[in-house]
């Protein structure tokens, strides 16, 4: 998106630069040519060093370069501007001269996105484009991009890249990129015929702790007759494998914390409704789904709008009953569109809280002293809600796009940290703190705790318990909605979304100790970490999950009240 906005500007700015102009002409030729000629043009482009062309090449791999068939039969490659008019059409920028595409009368032509065919690209061509891009990217202003380009060139096993890389090595200011270039150079030199060069390369790889080089090293060891190469290679592999296990260790810790955060976010609402209120809310999962679907609707409102249409699944006198309404879209783009998620968070809380309120008023208020029956009734609610999701949103999962600031990751010494994972950890901290503050530092929190400790006594003291119950249940459901908004970013959003999390949520709350927020936090991280460690050790996610469940069952024999059980003299 941002790229295309840039392209519009390019139309005016870059025309003056001769290098870019030549490169653009080459590119325009490359798009419409085929076979070896195309490969050659791409190689030339790779050497051009033109930043404008790099963006266009990237656009090509995404099928965003379109072909306009001129009336004279010639093919003109163009990209569409981002700016669309009322009819959803946009001006087209020519690749070759960066002018707007116009007809013979110099009227600018406008197209909708589906009007033109994309320039052909297949896997092999994209490979070639990628190589050209990689050479170009080695000069990218962004160090991350330079680094990944260097890694790719190293894996290519093509010696022609050695001079390119060496040239870049001299000019490279960034240490991490220099390391990547060194790694790539060593990998390329590993294929050298001279044993001395090979040994030097192997030593270099071992020094660099190059993760991706293990296979190449093993191959080199196996292929080389030279004992020096074999010995050096063996040692290098050993040292790198040592490094891999360290990386896995820290990676597992991070993944455990991140999974723990997800469990915590998911279970916190239940810790309120079940832990504090004693309501076995089997519809908790559906509250999560309400939050996730709210994010979906908000996303669509930021896009082209969303229509609610329900057709009742039976006919009435041969006539289907259908009703619905449409939320108009904001047609937002760019960062404004991506910010939808920030609006989705509070709205998810609100919608789930409202749903919780409705459930509390209609069903749960009659069941405060009958926990087993609240379990049964809320299970009924959960079934009804699942089917309602199907009727409103369809049986299929719906598509939720993550904003770009939640995609991607950064690495520290080969341990990778996904942005969404870092976000969920921060998110978990924020909502736990918020909940804790609400419960302990506000008047409402005081009332909630009073009612939960002794409903009758609180009532006698003049607390409007009905109201507090209502608010507490709505708050717990709202927290579930927040969890749903987050889950829409890492998983699927569908009618059975809640079912995937309900048992885990109950386990977290029960292990933590019913009624204890601290316990819930500890057990969420404990279960998350145990799950990730077992996965790593056993290599099987299924067995990991089964062992975690079995351990929980056994743990509860030992500590029936959970980690932090509330002490009481009561027998029940």
């Amino acid at each position, binding site marked *: 998106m941002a790229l295309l906005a840039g392209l519009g500007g390019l139309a005016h700015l870059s025309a003056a630069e001769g290098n870019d102009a030549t490169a653009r002409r080459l590119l325009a030729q490359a798009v419409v040519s085929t076979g070896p000629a195309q490969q050659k043009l791409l190689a030339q482009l790779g050497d051009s060093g033109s930043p404008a062309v790099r963006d266009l090449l990237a656009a090509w791999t995404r099928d965003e370069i379109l072909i306009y068939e001129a009336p004279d039969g010639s093919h003109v490659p163009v990209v569409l501007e981002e700016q669309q008019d009322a009819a959803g059409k946009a001006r087209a920028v020519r690749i070759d001269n960066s002018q707007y595409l116009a007809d013979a009368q110099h009227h600018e032509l406008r197209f909708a996105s589906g009007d033109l065919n994309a320039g052909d690209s297949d896997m092999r061509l994209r490979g070639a484009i990628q190589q050209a891009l990689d050479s170009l990217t080695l000069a990218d202003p962004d160090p991350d991009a330079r680094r990944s380009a260097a890694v790719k060139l190293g894996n290519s096993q093509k010696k022609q890249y050695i001079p390119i890389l060496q040239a870049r090595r001299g000019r490279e200011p960034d240490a991490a990129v220099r390391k990547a270039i060194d790694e790539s150079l060593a990998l390329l030199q590993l294929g050298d015929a001279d044993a001395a060069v090979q040994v030097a390369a192997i030593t270099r790889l071992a020094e660099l702790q190059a993760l991706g080089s293990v296979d190449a090293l093993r191959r080199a060891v196996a292929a080389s007759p030279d004992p020096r190469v074999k010995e050096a290679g063996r040692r290098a592999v050993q040292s790198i494998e040592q490094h891999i296990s360290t990386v896995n260790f820290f990676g597992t810790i991070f993944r455990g914390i991140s999974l723990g955060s997800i469990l915590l976010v998911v279970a916190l609402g239940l810790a309120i409704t079940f832990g504090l209120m004693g309501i076995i809310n089997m519809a908790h999962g559906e509250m999560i789904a309400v939050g996730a679907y709210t994010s979906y609707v908000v996303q669509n409102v930021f896009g082209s709008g969303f229509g609610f249409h329900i057709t009742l699944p039976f006919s009435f006198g041969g006539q289907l009953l259908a009703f619905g309404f449409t939320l108009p879209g904001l047609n937002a783009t760019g960062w404004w569109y991506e910010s939808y998620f920030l609006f989705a968070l509070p709205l998810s809380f609100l919608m789930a809280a409202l749903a919780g309120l409705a459930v509390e008023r209609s069903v749960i208020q009659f069941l405060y002293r009958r926990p087993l029956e609240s379990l049964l009734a809320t299970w009924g609610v959960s079934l009804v809600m*699942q089917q309602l999701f199907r009727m409103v949103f369809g049986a299929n999962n719906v598509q939720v796009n993550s904003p770009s600031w939640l995609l991607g990751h950064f690495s520290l010494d080969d341990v990778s940290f996904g942005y969404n994972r870092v976000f969920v950890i921060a998110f978990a901290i924020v909502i736990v703190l918020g909940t804790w503050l609400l419960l302990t530092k506000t008047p409402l929190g005081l009332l909630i705790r009073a009612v939960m400790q002794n409903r009758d006594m609180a009532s006698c003291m003049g607390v409007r318990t009905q109201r507090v119950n209502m608010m507490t249940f709505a708050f717990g459901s709202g927290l579930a909605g927040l969890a749903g908004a987050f889950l829409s970013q890492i998983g699927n959003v569908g009618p059975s979304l809640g079912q995937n999390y309900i048992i885990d949520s109950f386990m977290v709350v029960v292990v933590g100790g019913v009624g204890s927020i601290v316990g819930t936090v500890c057990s969420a991280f404990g279960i998350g970490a145990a799950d990730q460690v077992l996965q790593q050790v056993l290599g099987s996610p299924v067995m990991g999950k089964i062992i975690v*469940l079995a351990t929980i*069952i056994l743990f509860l024999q030992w500590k029936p009240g959970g980690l932090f059980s509330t002490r009481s003299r009561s027998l029940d």
Partner: protein
Amino acid sequence: MPNLNDTQIIRRGLLGRIPARLELIGVIAAALVVIVVLPSLNAFAPEGSAFHVSDFTINLYGKYLCYAVLAISVDLLWGYTGLLSLGQCLFFSIGGYALGMYLMLMIGKLGQYHSDLPDFMVFLGYPKLPAHWVPFHSFWFAAAAVIWVPGAVALIFGYLAFRSRIRGVYFSILTQALTYAASLMFFRNDFTFGGNNGLTDFKFIVGHDVRQPATQRGLYICTGLLLLGTYALCKWLTQSKFGKLQRAVRDSENRVLFSGYATANFKLFVFVVSAIIAALAGALYVPQVGIINPSEMTPDKSLEAVVWVAVGGRGTLIGPIIGAVFVNALKSWATRAYPDLWLIILGAMFIVVVLFLPGGIVSIPRRVMARWRRPEQPLPPLPTPPVEASADPAKTSPASSAS
């Protein structure tokens, strides 16, 4: 923890007013129809005549009867002893698997690969029959396994749970976790029980072709007899001193404990008995429906069984039978006529029963009669919370007089 007592609700569901003799006559009549009349009509009435009962119907009713037995086992735990198990289908499935293993081995060389091994073992590359499968060549070993395997599982789990005094909702959640873990286990191909596809394509049972109408009729009659037997056993249990103790544990476990009873052992006994009953139902279910797979032990299946009991009327023995048959017949119909509505119907039925009809279907006649006889009197109150019944001795005493 909040009090878990639901005496009052259950009491309303009891058929206490119906004279014992009338009930006995009703049960004998129903048993005659189910076990003698229907199979005879299936076997002897000519096809096309108004009296003919089709093979399909017999098979379908056989399935319902299995569900009814399962429902009684749930009710024995929940309605009579106050233990809501959400994992009863685990025992049902284990029973099914135990007999299913025997049925698998009886296929012999008639399978896809004409091998002595069950098909799934052949194409997953098992070199030979795993050791724990070998004894299942014997029907009697399998039949014994139907009883002792689920019994042992229930004994171990129950011992651990009751010893550490896990009760109420914790018991429910733990049983749910247990059945969930077991279903994950059985879904794995490595677990040697056919993974997700389960056990299927049965051919013979004790020398009879399982697909023949006569065999199915036999299985149907066995199921009817099992139901009758279960009914009689539970009737005897619940009417004896044992039953009094059961209800006492349900209503106030602590007082029973303080009166010198080892309630943990008592609950363990009930848990094991009900697990075995469920397993027997499962064992008869499998040859009639022709498949057992791990989705039978997923938590929602057990919850569904609880729905049957709640809808029929818990704390009675007729209630679960009526509930199981009614809900499943409704399901058979709704999944054909209005597939999109089935979940809403099931869910709404549950909410309505919990909120408005705690005694289930069996309490309807009594409610109607109460209204018809004494219109000036208000109906039994809506289920506003019974106030901490166990804490107040005066409130619990009528419960015992109702039985």
